[in-house]
């Protein structure tokens, strides 16, 4: 979809909601260099969120939406959970169907869009919590990787079932006392990144959302590799401050602590050789494009 498609009819422009008018005027659709730095200065694709105050998921949402290479041709697939409270406010087509079937939905969707739009790259991105990705949906998550479905799976890992009130999940740390784990969780945190690597993901990244530039790079890598090569997976630590007993302003510290040396979320990436080659070539192209633009500017000056 090009930006022209959402241009308002002049006669009716004034009755359209202000957020829609802003979308038409100042969205970063079509800007190749869009990124987290646009947050606050251009129209964001997330209008509001109904998450808890200080929830790291809300900032993760903003970084992800700001980092998509082509939001005007991206469709999101969500699942039941805290994320499903945010999607109704997002200016990108998105699907909520059931709990745990997000990668099945995305498989059918991506293949159909590839058939219907052979000349346009339509990106499909799954965004779901750890319960949906690992517990109830692990079968469909992994099977989509086995089948080499060409879309990105993002998991908001808050290490528990947040939306239903803090029950044990597969990605919870061992020993953590939670609802349904009254004596502490008895088994280790599921090593999903390694599972993803072995199941055939061409690009895997684990990190927190404490540093927006890192999130931006990872999301861009994941979407671009999924376009060209195969499935990609991003696991983001978005702690549920409510359920781990933190204050609204403590989410960032929690993420910083967990990514410091020896922490559970020290940033790591698994990249296949093919994916690395692609990412290198994209980097070169971007560099050349920016240099050319700069040279042109200098000449014009």
């Amino acid at each position, binding site marked *: 979809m090009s930006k022209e498609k959402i241009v308002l009819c002049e006669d009716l422009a004034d009755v359209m909601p202000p957020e829609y008018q802003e979308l038409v005027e100042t969205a970063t659709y079509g800007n190749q260099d869009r990124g987290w730095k646009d947050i606050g200065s251009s129209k964001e694709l997330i209008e509001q969120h109904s998450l808890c105050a200080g929830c790291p998921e809300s900032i993760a949402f903003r970084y992800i939406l700001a980092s998509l290479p082509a939001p005007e041709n991206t469709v999101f697939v969500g699942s039941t959970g805290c994320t499903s409270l945010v999607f109704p406010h997002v200016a990108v087509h998105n699907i909520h169907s059931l709990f745990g079937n997000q990668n099945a939905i995305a498989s*059918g969707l991506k293949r159909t869009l590839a058939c219907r739009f052979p000349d346009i790259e339509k990106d499909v991105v799954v965004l779901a919590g750890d319960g949906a990705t690992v517990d109830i949906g692990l079968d469909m998550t992994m099977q989509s990787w086995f089948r080499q479905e060409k879309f990105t799976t993002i998991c908001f890992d808050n290490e528990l079932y947040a939306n239903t009130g803090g029950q044990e999940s597969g990605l919870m740390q061992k020993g953590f006392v939670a609802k349904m784990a009254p004596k502490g969780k008895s088994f280790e945190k599921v090593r999903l990144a390694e599972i993803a690597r072995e199941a055939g993901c061409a690009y895997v990244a684990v990190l927190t959302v404490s540093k927006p530039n890192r999130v931006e790079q990872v999301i861009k890598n994941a979407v671009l590799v999924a376009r060209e090569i195969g499935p990609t997976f991003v696991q983001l630590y978005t702690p549920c401050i409510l359920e781990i007993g933190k204050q609204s302003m403590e989410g960032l510290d929690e993420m910083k602590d967990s990514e410091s040396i020896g922490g559970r979320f020290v940033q790591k990436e698994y990249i296949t050789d093919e994916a690395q080659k692609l990412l290198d070539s994209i980097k070169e192209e971007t560099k050349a494009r920016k240099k050319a633009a700069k040279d042109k500017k200098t000449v014009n000056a």
Partner: protein
Amino acid sequence: MNKQVELKNKRIIASKHVKLGQKNKMNQTYTDINDIFYNSEQTPNFLTGSEVIREAIKRASVGTSVAYPITPQSEAAALIGEIYAEGYLDEYFRGESEFAVMGQCAGASFGGHRVFTTTAGPGTLRAMENFPMWAGSRLPIQVCVTCRGINSPLSIQPDTLEMHYLLETGMLVWHAETAQDLYDFILKGFIVAEQPDVHVPIAVCCDGFFVTHTKDTVDLSPLDKCLTPYDPYRNPQPVMDMETAPIRMMRDPFVMKSNYISYATHASWQQEIKAAVERSRKHTIPLLDGLIDEENIDREILIVGSGTAVSQSREAIRLLEEEGIKVGLVKIKTIRPFPYEEIRQATKNAKHIFVPEFNVAGWLAREIKANIPDNERVYVGPHVAGGMTMPSEVIVEEIKKHLGMEVASRGTLG
């Protein structure tokens, strides 16, 4: 909502489709559904029910089909794979379970494809959570349900109990008696389900094995004519392809709100799905020539049935006729929408109404009992279950027994 629709001069407005008259990559011409069935030569073929499903899908301009093996539908799903390899569909693959398959079908439908899949028995129940989701999301997916037992211990025998579970999913539910019905219902089902004022999924059901694994003579429409393709933009919901403006759907997600507006929204949406199913009547009646078929409904004894129970009843009626007992027949083709008014009319003179069924619940008899006056006239049965066949003689015996007539001992029967 139960008003009868006059048949005369009514034709479904199937297509003012832009592709009407054009050819697809298989050199088939996109043709109006009415012309396919009523203005083309139909050629008899001797085929199994599974092969009939393949033949229908060859002519159905399907975008995506997702397959999963389960007896007795595996053969049909595999045959669709073969025609995919020949070039008839755009996309086909095997999913990992029925739950996943129905999700994959939903994804394809959200993305704008015409979607077909098949399932049976335990697969239908494994997939069940998806069906109300399809309806609520207004996805006009077609699933062919080749019914089989769902009980434990493991059964793979024919049994229509699973249809009972489909009745309140918000899907259209049609029940084919024969392979011919199956062929007609699959093609016509797409067109009815995809009408903008309907736009809900459809389950075309048949009795497994009896229909899928036996051979029958079926009139097929010409292979060089196929349905007009699904137009995803004739849709009450936006297609999830980012080709329309990404509207902000709501200010607050209803799921989290415990207030009257939230409840009212959900309730009205459920009612809208029910209404959409009812609105399918006006498209279905001309295409299927009514929601029911009637034979000799002026008689005091009537059999009302659906699926292969109707075929068995026809033979029972012939046997009874030999003994001078005259029995009429009502065949129900659509279970959702349920032909309330048609059945009320058709049964108004009957004193005894028998409802033979291939399931232990007797769900069709319940539906009828709940919707006609003087329902003590309805005799719930005969029914068989767990894969048992229903010989015509059993129907004869049950009718005679109920009417207080002399019944031959089982040893001397037929």
